[in-house]
């Protein structure tokens, strides 16, 4: 399959953007139903996006807007790029070492967020950026350790080979460790520390408005697809060989992950920065280390 197809159609833009909106909607809808509320209609995230993009934004110093445009676009491009590396279809273009590239690309969005936070020159934006940076470091330790365990167990740095070859025990423990990392990477409860509304407004995004916020919300939607997609594509070694069937299986697995994450978010209060970091260093990293040990000795 040509690489432009992966980038633009599946699992790139044409799939990722509507899917991201669907995931944002599903998160809100499930949370609403868990609280006996009606919740929004399915097109709500799309309408939110249109509304933000058509709003007249505040005027800012002319030199700043280039960053407000470029940083979200960079984050968006990198996240979609990481998505195209996922081993969904048997024919996916898989290069040597695409695991490393995936990690690098998926980390662009948090870095851009930190930059946006400092760029905004708002105290809340800066505190949010500090928190985001601290948590990124805290969560990447288990995240990368788990990926190393998977790569070691399957003897390859190619995502496709990891998906098909990783032994069951390592795969289960490592994927659980990866799942642990998702709430913090998607800024969900109980780890919604970096965007803790009641403490620091929207954190790094506090000063963003209109299209500047709209672009970032779009990036966030695609982040959902990429990160849940990583676990969804590594969870099942089996591929039918039929592109449509594999794509549907992948999409369904991703949506199941959204449900799991939302239920956890609905059942918890927000932790503090120190508590969240400690959780990741202790439990997240512990689990990832266990996966590594299992992959070494089994």
């Amino acid at each position, binding site marked *: 399959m040509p690489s432009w197809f992966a980038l633009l159609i599946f699992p790139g833009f044409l799939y990722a953007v509507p899917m991201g909106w669907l995931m944002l909607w599903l998160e809100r809808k499930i949370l609403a*139903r*868990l*609280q*006996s*509320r*009606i919740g929004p209609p399915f097109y709500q995230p799309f309408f939110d996006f249109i509304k933000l993009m058509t709003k007249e934004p505040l005027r800012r110093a002319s030199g700043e807007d280039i960053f407000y445009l470029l940083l979200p676009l960079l984050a968006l491009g990198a996240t979609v790029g990481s998505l195209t590396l996922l081993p969904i279809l048997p024919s996916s273009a898989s290069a040597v070492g695409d695991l490393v590239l995936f990690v690098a690309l998926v980390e662009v969005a948090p870095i851009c967020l930190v930059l946006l936070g400092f760029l905004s020159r708002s105290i809340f934006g800066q505190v949010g950026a500090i928190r985001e940076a601290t948590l990124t470091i805290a969560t990447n330790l288990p995240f990368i350790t788990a990926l190393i365990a998977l790569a070691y167990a399957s003897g390859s740095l190619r995502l496709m080979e990891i998906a098909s070859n990783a032994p069951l025990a390592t795969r289960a423990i490592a994927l659980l460790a990866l799942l642990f990392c998702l709430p913090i990477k998607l800024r969900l409860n109980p780890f919604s520390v970096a965007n803790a509304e009641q403490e620091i407004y929207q954190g790094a995004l506090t000063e963003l408005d209109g299209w500047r916020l709209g672009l970032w919300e779009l990036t966030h939607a695609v982040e959902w697809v990429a990160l849940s997609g990583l676990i969804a594509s590594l969870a099942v070694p089996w591929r039918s060989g039929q592109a449509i069937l594999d794509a549907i299986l992948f999409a369904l697995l991703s949506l199941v992950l959204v449900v799991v994450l939302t*239920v956890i978010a*609905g*059942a918890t209060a927000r932790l503090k920065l120190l508590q969240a970091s400690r959780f990741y260093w202790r439990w997240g990293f512990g689990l990832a280390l266990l996966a590594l040990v299992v992959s070494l000795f089994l």
Partner: protein
Amino acid sequence: MSIWEILAENLRQGVVTLRYPQRVPPPARYRGLVQIELEDCVGCASCAYVCVSAAIHVTEERETFCWSYDPAKCTFCGRCVDACPTSALQMQAECPPIYHCAGALAVTYTRAYPRCEGCGKPFKVATQILRQRAYTEVSGEVETLLRLCPVCRQKEAIKSMVEARRIKEATR
């Protein structure tokens, strides 16, 4: 109950919120717009005296009085209803309508004082409710007296007193 049980219970119960045009009906005692029964009003201005936000005004002319009420100023505390000696005021048991400019719902009622049956001058009359309260049994004689202005009533009273004395002396 743990939080998981609450989540499961909520999910089982289904949606309990309403989509906007639907709303919960207000209770029977709901304090809505103040309504006046003009026939019962004597223009005593007790309502205006207790109104904290100056939503009610009563102005008196020689032959008429005006009762005006602006819901935009009203705090719906209901003290006017409680203070009204003739129970002429009521509160609507439904939510006030949505309106866009401050004085849109303001009302002013003008009522002419009834005229005295004796001299024809306008005067403040006691309404049915007040009469009932003052005299448990309203006889025909009292009814006739109450349709007279205070001055005529005095004249009438003196007349009847003189009449009574005359009868008394005649019978002696």
